[in-house]
């Protein structure tokens, strides 16, 4: 699209663009290096004691301890466990919501719509606190319930949009060969809508995985909690080191799920939206 907007560059313009490109790379590289150095610079605190920079070895030696890695691993596993359970429940809820919202009976459709709007407009964190305090479940189930309901509502909307986007003929054909309304929805419309919406659903599951970190507010000991606990145990000296490692772990988990989403989007052969 954007390539249509300018002429194919001639030799002069190409040279120009190459120069700008080099300058751009240089500026960005200098910025990144400056940031790294600024983080690494030793600095004096108020009482005159000089603290080593953030890349100093004395801030990273804690990772020689196997117990630290075990603790981080437990946190990551707890995160994945919550995300896994919540994802399954969110998918189930999403399917139920989408059926409710696309129902022919107003008695089912209208209440489902209201409930869906309510859940979609609510911060996940508030829902977690709500489940924790009102139903006094443990922090694990508070997190799972809030994540499942919220993401289920969004997945339900996506599936409904998918069902709505199907050609009318699909439903008519199903009814014409004698399937009941529910059977048509389940066996004709739903499988197509699900395949169409799979990229959106997986993108939502990435959001769910990220949002498990909210459960640390209600006291579930997942990855972020492990980071806090480790920082409290080993002291503030290591806070940046732990932060950095936890950031890398989160990025690794989320980026691989995003990559999977893109692969599936390409494989399922759904036409690009534009």
């Amino acid at each position: 699209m954007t390539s249509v907007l300018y002429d194919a560059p001639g030799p002069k313009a190409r040279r120009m663009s190459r120069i700008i490109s080099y300058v751009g790379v240089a500026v960005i590289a200098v910025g990144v290096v400056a940031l790294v150095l600024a983080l690494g610079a030793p600095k004096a605190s108020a009482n005159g004691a000089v603290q080593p920079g953030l890349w100093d070895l004395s801030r990273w030696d804690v990772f020689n301890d196997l117990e630290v890695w075990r603790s981080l691993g437990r946190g990551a596993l707890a995160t994945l466990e919550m995300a896994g359970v919540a994802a399954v429940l969110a998918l189930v809820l999403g399917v139920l919501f989408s059926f409710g919202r696309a129902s022919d009976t107003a008695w089912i459709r209208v209440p489902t719509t209201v409930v869906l709007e309510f859940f979609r407009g609510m911060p996940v964190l508030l829902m977690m606190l709500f489940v924790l305090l009102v139903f006094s479940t443990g922090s694990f189930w508070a997190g799972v319930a809030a994540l499942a309901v919220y993401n289920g509502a969004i997945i339900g909307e996506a599936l409904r949009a998918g069902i709505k986007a199907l050609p009318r003929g699909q439903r008519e054909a199903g009814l014409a060969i004698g399937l009941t309304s529910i059977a048509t929805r389940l066996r004709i419309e739903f499988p197509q809508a699900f395949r169409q919406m799979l990229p959106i659903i997986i993108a939502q599951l990435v959001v769910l995985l990220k949002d498990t970190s909210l459960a640390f507010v209600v006291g579930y000991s997942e990855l972020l909690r492990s980071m806090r606990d480790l920082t409290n145990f080993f002291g503030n000296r290591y806070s940046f080191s732990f932060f950095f490692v936890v950031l890398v772990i989160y990025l690794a988990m989320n980026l691989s799920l995003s990559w999977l989403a893109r692969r599936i989007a390409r494989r399922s052969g759904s036409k690009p939206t534009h």
Partner: protein
Amino acid sequence: MDAVIDNLPVFLEGFRNTLGLLVISGVGALILGLIVAGLRISPIGSFRGFATVYTEIIRNTPLTLILFFCAFLLPYLQFSPGYFTLAAIGLTVYTSPFVAEAVRSGINGVHVGQAEAARSIGLGFGQSLAFVILPQALRMVVPPLINVFIALAKNTSVAGAFFVFELFGAARQVTNDRGDQVLAILLAVAVFYLLITVTLGIIAGRVEKRVAVLR
């Protein structure tokens, strides 16, 4: 119910702070996001690469982790303008790639024929962008952009866990004081949030209807 009425000033203060966070970081994210979107469609490869990496990293980092960085590590690096500002910075950074993606998808959503037509009647890069592409793109961008701001309104609640006294913080404080009326308190806070998100949703619907391009 009396716990809600007694603590109404507390809720209102929280509501004000939530709105403040929403407006400040919303404007900030809009500016930063437009810059990133501009870099992403620029003809210069290194800018595109930088913007892509930025978008991918921020989008795949949990907001809690970003706010954690702002609330604990920035003060540690001797930058401490107060928790409200720090939270606003964190929310701005977290929201900016989503704004950028919405704007970019709007620009990509304009039909290629439009750009080709603009070019073939002799408009330059800037002209075709300013007179043909952007007027169409911006209309398509408004609804997804408002969705981004709805998400931002909900995300401000995370700042409540990092010492900012907004609605979620107010909810936590009041439920600690009045453990007997948790249900009423949380529902009241929910109403405040719905006030923001439903209003934004209605605006999105109106705008969508008014500026929809017939295609």
